[in-house]
C-alpha cells in the first residue's frame, strides 16, 4: 500500500476548497454541517484508501456526495411522500428560491437548486477553478459531459434569473 500523508496535511491544504465548494453547493448556513460530514467520512475511510494521489479530488468527491445527501434530506423534509426521487435533468428552480434571490448576493440559492451534477460542475468550475478534465473525474463522467453540465447549469441560472 502506498504511504498516505498525515491527515492534517489534507486539512491544511484542502479544507478551504472543500468549504468553498460546500458553501456554494448548499449555502453558507448549512455548509459547516456538511463540511463536518465530509471530513468525518474522509477520516473514517482514509486508512483504507489505496493511493496517495489526488487527495483533493477524493475529498471533493466526498463533498459532492454529501451535498447530494444534504439536498435529498432537505427535499424529504419539504416535500410530501412519493416525490423524493431525484430527477435527472430538469428540476425547476422553485418560486421561493427565485423570489428570495438577489442579483448578486444570493446567487448560491439558485445554484443550490440545480440538479446535483450541474450544481457540482458549476461550483467546481466557478468556485474552485477546476479544469473540465478534473471535474469529469470527480463526477465520474466524460469531459464532454462535464462541459455540458457546466453549460446547462449556466443556461438554467441565466434563464431563471431573466
Amino acid at each position, binding site marked *: 500500500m502506498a504511504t498516505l500523508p*498525515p491527515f492534517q496535511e489534507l486539512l491544511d491544504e484542502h479544507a478551504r476548497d472543500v468549504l468553498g465548494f460546500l458553501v456554494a453547493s448548499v449555502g*453558507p448556513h448549512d455548509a459547516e454541517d456538511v463540511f463536518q460530514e465530509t471530513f*468525518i467520512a474522509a477520516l473514517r475511510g482514509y486508512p483504507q484508501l489505496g493511493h496517495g494521489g489526488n487527495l483533493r479530488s477524493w475529498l471533493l468527491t466526498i463533498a459532492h456526495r454529501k451535498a447530494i445527501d444534504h439536498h435529498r434530506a432537505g427535499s424529504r423534509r419539504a416535500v410530501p411522500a412519493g416525490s423524493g426521487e431525484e430527477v435527472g435533468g430538469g428540476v425547476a428552480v422553485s418560486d421561493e428560491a427565485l423570489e428570495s434571490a438577489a442579483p448578486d448576493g444570493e446567487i448560491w440559492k439558485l445554484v443550490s437548486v440545480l440538479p446535483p451534477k450541474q450544481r457540482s460542475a458549476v461550483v467546481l468550475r466557478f468556485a474552485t477553478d477546476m479544469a473540465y478534465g478534473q471535474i469529469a473525474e470527480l463526477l465520474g463522467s466524460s469531459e464532454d459531459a462535464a462541459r455540458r453540465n457546466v453549460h446547462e447549469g449556466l443556461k438554467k441560472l441565466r434563464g431563471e434569473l431573466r
Partner: protein
Amino acid sequence: MNPISERQLRSALRGAAAEVDLGDATARLLDRAEDEGLVEVAYATADSPFGRLLLAATDRGIVKVGLPNQDVDEVLSRLAAEVSPRVLEAPRRLDRARRELDDYFEGKLTAFDLPVDWRLSRGFADKVLHAVARIPYGETLSYGEVAAQAGNPRAFRAAGTACGINPVPLIVPCHRVIQVGGKPGNYGGGPEMKRALLELEGSLRA
C-alpha cells in the same frame, strides 16, 4: 434583471464562502473527530528552552517526542506510516505533557507522570529504553550499565544505538545515559542539549 455573467457567478460563490469561518469549522471538526475516536495520533508543538518540541500521543500515551533539531514534517510522515495516517493537530490531548515538560524545564518537576506508548521501540532497544525509563532524576548510568539492566552487559554499543533511536526522549530520559568517564556523549538533540539537561538535573560533574 440581467443574465448572470461568469465573473458575477465566480465572485458571488466566493463571496458566500467568505461568510463561513474556516477556523471555527475545523475546530469543531477536530472536537467531533476526537469524540468519535478518529484521531489516532494527536500532536502539538511545545516551546522549550532548546526550541520547539513536537509531542504526539495515541490513546495509549505519548508515542513520540520530536526534538528541536528534528524535521517536523518528517516526524509526522513517519508517524503516519508507522502508527496510523489519522494524524491530526489536536493540542488538547497533549496539554498535560506540555505542562509537565514546562515544569521540568523550570526545575519544578523531577518525575513525569505520563503514560508512554512504546509501540515504536522493538526488541533489545525496547528492553534498553525500559531500563532507561527507570533511571531517576539527577542520576546517570553508563551505556554498559544500561545494557546490563536490559539483560546483556556486553551490548553497550547496542545500548547506545537504542538511546539514539529513542522515540520519546526527555520523558524516557536517555540523556541520563553517559560515557564511562563521565562525559555526556552523543544525544539525538545534540550534545549541548544533553549537557544542559544534565546540568539542570545537577548530575554533571564539572
